[in-house]
Every structure is written in C-alpha cells, then in structure tokens.
C-alpha cells in the first residue's frame, strides 16, 4: 500500500518536472505569437494576456509585409534549402552506394576522407570559400549558398545512408544483375526506393541547419535579392528595434513555417533520431 503511494508521488513529481520544463520551452514562443497580434499599449501593459477583441491589432504584420520583402526572402530560403537537400540526397546516396556496395582500393580511405566533414565544421574554411566565390563570380548568388550547404550536408548523409544500404539484401541486387540491370538501374530502381526512410531522416537533419543558418547568407549572399529568411528577419528586426509590433510580427512570421512543419513531421523526426541514426 505504502509502496503504491510512494510510486504515485514519484510519478506526479516526474510529471511536475516535465510539465515545468515543457512550459519553459514553449512559453517564449507562445508569448511572441500572442503579443504579435495585440496593439502597442496592450503589449506593454499586459504582456501575458491573450489578445481580446479590444486589444486585437495586426498593425505589426502590415508593417512587416509592407516594408520588408519577406516574400522574396521566403522564396530564397525555400530554393536554397530544397536544392541543397536534393543535391545532398542524390550525391550522398550515390557515394554511399559506391562505398557500401563495391570493394575497391581506397574504399576505406575515401570513407574516412568523407567523414572528416562530420566533425570539422565547414565554417572554418570561410576565408578561402569567400575568396573562391569572389574568383568565380558567385558572390551574392543563391548558387554559392547551395554549393556550400551541399558540401556541408554530404558527410553525414554518406555516413547514415551507407549504414542503411549495407542492410539491403545482396540477393535482390544480384537477381537484378542476372536480369541484366545495369549498376545504375540497380541503384536507382532497386536500392533507392528501399532506403527511402533513411533518406527522410537525412533530409530532416540537413534541412534544419540550412534553413536556420545566418553565417553564410551574411557572408556570401547579403544582397537584397538573395537574402534568406533568417538573414532578412535579422536585418529587419535590427532596423525596427523600437517598433515592437513589427519586431514581434516578424518573429512570428519566421517561427510560423518551422512550427507548422515541426507539428506535421515531429513524429518522423523523433523516430529518425531515436531509431539509432547516431550510434
């Protein structure tokens, strides 16, 4: 009897701790979202209150959408992220297939070479990357960002995907070979469809740092036409520091797509992390 009560106390304490921390995690985001929809007075007088019909005001959003070029920023971020993920998945999967499927001289060496980038951040080469981009005339183009993010994503993609490709049955591939499929068709038609779950995991892991990166957009593509959402909101907020409505609205606009994507894909993401992609 007393044991059951002790465990009940313990469970409630655990729930209490987890709820408190969950609130700490979500509260700042929630606070930003509710205040972005209030008028200036209400933001300061009652920051904790939900917007009521009396205090509801979208003036911040009008300022943001009227002043900043957020549509272009979103478009840039979208193009860069999608193109980089597509290249990382294609090139990464091809290299992973070569490393896991064939024995050839230099296989291990190539694997190690590609693994360096998992631990050493690409940022440390910025000085020479900028030089190279200037030399090739790629500064202030989205291509520069796509190239950098592709290079950044390849190491982890090769690592995770080759682990998964080792599990694809050899019999299946050999059956394909007997049926006269070329090595290319074996890769594209047999192996790729089978590792699709792993590709999804890699895509999520690759996407987050690209979408959120501030360093490379700031250095390689700071022009108005190539700003990403992250850089765009950073600069916009910097200019409108005193206009709280606009700042809160810009923050909410930047949070919104991430929030929606996360709520849709959180199950997949968490399963990807916990399924032992990193062991």
């Amino acid at each position, binding site marked *: 009897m007393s044991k059951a009560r002790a465990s009940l106390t*313990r469970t409630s304490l655990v729930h209490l701790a987890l709820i408190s921390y*969950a609130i700490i995690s979500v509260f700042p985001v929630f606070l930003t979202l509710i205040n972005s929809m209030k008028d200036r007075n209400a933001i300061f007088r009652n920051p904790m209150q939900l917007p009521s019909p009396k205090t509801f005001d979208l003036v911040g959003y009008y300022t943001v959408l009227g002043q900043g070029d957020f549509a272009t920023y979103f478009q840039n971020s979208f193009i860069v992220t999608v193109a980089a993920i597509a290249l990382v998945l294609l090139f990464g999967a091809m290299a992973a297939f*070569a490393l896991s499927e064939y024995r050839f001289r230099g296989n291990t060496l190539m694997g190690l070479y590609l693994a360096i*980038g998992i631990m050493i951040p690409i940022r440390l080469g910025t000085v*020479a990357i900028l030089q190279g981009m200037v030399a090739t005339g790629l500064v202030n183009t989205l291509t520069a960002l796509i190239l950098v993010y592709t290079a950044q994503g*390849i190491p982890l993609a090769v690592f995770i995907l080759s682990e998964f490709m080792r599990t694809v049955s050899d019999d299946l591939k050999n059956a394909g070979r007997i049926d006269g499929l*070329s090595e290319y068709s074996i890769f594209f038609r047999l192996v790729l469809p089978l590792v699709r779950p792993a590709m999804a995991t890699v895509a999520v892991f690759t996407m987050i740092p690209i979408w959120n990166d*501030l360093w490379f957009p700031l250095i390689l593509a700071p022009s108005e036409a190539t700003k990403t959402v*992250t850089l765009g909101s950073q600069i916009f907020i910097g200019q409108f520091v005193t206009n709280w409505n606009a700042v809160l609205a810009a923050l909410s606009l930047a949070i919104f797509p991430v929030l929606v994507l996360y709520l849709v894909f959180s199950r997949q993401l968490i399963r990807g992390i916990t399924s032992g992609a990193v062991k």
Partner: protein
Amino acid sequence: MSNTPSTHDATGPIIKRPTRWHIVVFLLPAFIVYSAVMILPLIETLRLSLFNTVDGQSTFVGLGNFKVLFGDERWAHDFWNALKNNFIFFVIHMLVQNPMGVALAAMLSLPKLRFASFYRTAIFLPTLLSFVIVGFIWKLILSPIWGVSPFLMDLVGLKSLFSPWLGKPGSALIAVSLISVWQYVGIPMMLIYAALLNIPEEVIEAAECDGVTGWSQFWKIKLPLILPAIGIISILTFVGNFNAFDLVYTVQGALAGPDGSTDILGTLLYRTFFGFQLQLGDRSMGATIATVMFLIILAGVSLYLFVIQRRMRRYQF
C-alpha cells in the same frame, strides 16, 4: 582505384576486370563538391594563416601571425578574452545542458509514462528555431523595458533579484550561455533517450530481481550503459560551442558587448575577417583565428576518438 577484382568472386580465380567506371561515376559528384567547397578552402585557409601582406605583397611569414595573435598587445587581449569566454561558454553547456538532457531523458523513458510524446515534442521545439528567433525572443523577455521577466519573477517572489542580465558585463556571458542551453537541451535529451530505450528489458528485469530499483538502478545500471552516448553529446557540444557565432551575434551584436564580455572565437573571427565599424577586415589574421579554432576542435575530436572512445567500455547485447 577500380582495377582490383571485386569480392563477389573472391572464391574464384582472380580475373583482371576492366575499370569499373560506375564506381567513379557514383563517387565523383560528392567527391568534387565536397573537395572543392569544403576541404580545399579549409587547407587554403590553413595556408593563408602563414602569410601576411608586407608592403602590399603577400609574403610568407611563418608563424608570425600566431605570434602577433598570442602576444601583440592589440590582438592578444581580444584573443585571450574570446578564448576564455568560449571556454566558459563550453563549461556552462557541459554543466547545465548535458546533465539536464540526461535528467529529462531519464524521466521521459520511465515505462508507462503518459503524455511522453507531448513532452518530447514541446522540449525539442526550441532546437528547431533559428538563432535569430531565439536571440530576439530572449532579448525581449529579458528586457527591463517590457517587464515580462520582473513580472514572472514577482509571481515566485523573486522580483528583487531581477536585473538586466544581458546588459551587465558580469552576467551577460552566463545569460547568453543559458539561452543557448535552453535552445539546445533537446539534442542531448533525444540522444540519451534513444540510448536508454536501447537498454534491453532483461537487464532491467535482472536488476529488479536483485532489488536494484529507482535511483540506484539509474546510477548503477543505466548510467554506465549510456556513457558512450554521453561521450558523443560531449564532443558534439564541444565542436558546436567552439564554432558558435550566431546566437551571440543576434543577441549582443558583432561587438559581443557589453565591453566584449560575450566575445567568443566565432564573433572574433567575424570581426577580424570582415571588419566592423572602424576596424578594417584582415584576411590573414582571419585565417589565423580560423586555424586556431581548427586546431582546438581537432585536438578535442582527437582526444575523444583516440583516448576517451577507446577507453570506454561498450556493452554488447
């Protein structure tokens, strides 16, 4: 590279095969992009750190740049300050973020815990937000102008303890570190959570049969089993911290104020390479700082790979 026979016929006689071009085709795109955009620039940056402009010409100066960085009055102060701050930044992460991640994971992995997936989703949310969002939200919340923090602290009766932490040299670095911890605690939590789920039922049952439950079960059975995962999160934290830039930049600006008290190697590199306000950009010194960061990260990673990971006992189930 591809002239050796494949192992598919390892048992048969060794036949000389024609070059297997498909291997080259599969490897080439990744190899080219990765080498051209990552490895070569990295090597070039390391090389540039040995050169400086003398009389308008790029000249080999050996370790001269490093001597200036470590010893010259103008540079050394900034550099050692940034290095010290970076180290404190890392220590705070190790002391707060990782133990908290372990604690949260331990609670989440309790069997038959209700709402576990809700907690997981909520606690992992900040990790997905960009530094810009996180930095500004916390700047607003901690701002004395808005008054959210004093109001909240009043609720628990601690209003008198409030001060504009981000604006004071003594507390700014701790405040920024804790914001970073808030954002990233989800990563150690998830990795440890995965490691805890991988512990087989039988081990736990055996422990329970021997009367090892609750706290002592965690300390004596589970913790030793998740040590490898703790090793991985430590090295990830190390690399991430010594490469950090974005959060300090969004919260405190490129000058990493107040009075350089939140300056870390990443912001120092940015200011040195690109220049800021009155300071002109300096490519050679930028490359030198990047090289020092590279060596620090390399030392940490090697220590982990060759010493810590080898000594760690791994249990096979």
